[in-house]
């Protein structure tokens, strides 16, 4: 295949990969916070439910979760699914998986904040919600950002798992081209793409870490 047409096809895949990446973060970051709240809840059944959820999400392969989310509705409920569901299934599977990891990261960060911070806020009259968002969360961000960076970098590479349900993202496309051409050129181009993407991610996260690091 000519380099230009190959790059054209890969570009389409790249857009899909970036969409998966951004939508996963959009949903999993807030969802992770909710799961973390559930995991730290005073209500034991909710706490256990979240613990089991996190355990399953972290304890089974993401690739398997993708397959279950995509084929599950058909095999379990006999539902007929629109072609768009392929992409939606990827976003659901990635979001609920990454939310579990983020939940544990949030929990670690929240538990690291000294009790005195809550007490000082209470004495100054801050409400519970106000305390969390203006006093606690900004401190949690500083603590968790390096761990979040790790997850985000992993997510960039994990988007390639979408090939198992044939979502036309970067890796799926590259694999198809490589098979058709009997050459790994397309896969190498994909490799460069993932690397450059992650260099950018690392750059942005480093800026964020600096921005939140009030101790520096």
């Amino acid at each position, binding site marked *: 295949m000519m380099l230009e047409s190959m790059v054209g096809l890969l570009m389409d895949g790249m857009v899909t990969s970036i969409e998966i990446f951004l939508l996963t973060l959009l949903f999993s970051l807030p969802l992770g916070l909710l799961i973390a709240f559930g995991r730290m809840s005073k209500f034991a059944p909710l706490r256990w439910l979240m613990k089991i959820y996190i355990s399953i999400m972290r304890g089974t392969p993401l690739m398997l979760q993708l397959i279950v989310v995509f084929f599950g509705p058909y095999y379990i409920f006999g539902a007929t699914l629109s072609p768009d569901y392929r992409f939606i299934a990827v976003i659901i599977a990635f979001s609920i998986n990454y939310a579990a990891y983020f939940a544990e990261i949030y929990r670690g960060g929240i538990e690291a904040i*000294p009790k*005195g*911070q809550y*007490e*000082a*806020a*209470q*004495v*100054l*009259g*801050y409400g519970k919600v*106000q305390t969390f968002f*203006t*006093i606690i969360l*900004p*401190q949690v961000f*500083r603590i968790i950002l390096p761990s979040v960076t790790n997850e985000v970098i992993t997510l960039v590479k994990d988007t390639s798992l979408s090939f198992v349900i044939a979502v036309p993202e970067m890796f799926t496309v590259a694999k198809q081209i490589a098979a058709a051409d009997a050459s790994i050129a397309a896969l190498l181009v994909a490799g460069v793409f993932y690397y450059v993407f992650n260099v950018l991610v690392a750059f942005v996260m480093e800026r964020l870490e600096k921005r939140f690091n*009030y*101790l520096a």
Partner: protein
Amino acid sequence: MSLLEVKNLKKSFDDNVVLKDISLNVEKGEVLCIIGPSGSGKSTLLRCITDLEQEDSGIIDFNGTFGLVFQDFNLFPHHTVMKNITNAPIKVQKRDKDEVFKSARDLLKKMGLSDKEDAYPHELSGGQQQRVSIARALAMNPDILFFDEPTSALDPELTGEILVVIRDLAAEHMTMVIVTHEMTFARNVADKIIFMDDGYIIEEGTPDEVFSSDNARMKEFLGKFYD
């Protein structure tokens, strides 16, 4: 009528009875120092009055605003000195921004920290941090200021600068309740002293009365400081 009235306050943590039967009054403009050995219930008493702990029984009668200065400051590390002081008055009390900033600058000047407005807490010494936390409490215009061992986390050199600040506030007739281990300071600054031991108030009175008490427990406690 007293500004603060506590009657028959009791508080336990599981099997550990910390406050057994505490009653006290604080009048407007009065400086009350609470002294006593560690574990006598002084801090728990303060924490019940300031709603950080829920008492088991008893009455706390207080209609007004209060500030609390903690032993380990508890400044917000992600906020500058200025924001530490002004955020609650603006966001919680919904006061006018300009007025709050003006009074915060006055307070910082009084604390000798005018040049630290934009500093973060970790850039300050312990004594400076504690002065910021006093300014933060004062910025809320409290009717009473509570201090929970305000110098216990500071080395002796820095303790002095905090005691000077509290003494100045006493001279301005700020109503204050101070839990402290600084006996000489308590004797000098207090209008009234309460000596607590094992969850009870053992002695209560003017500094002279308390420090010349014949109570055996009181004498034993003071002996440790003056021997």
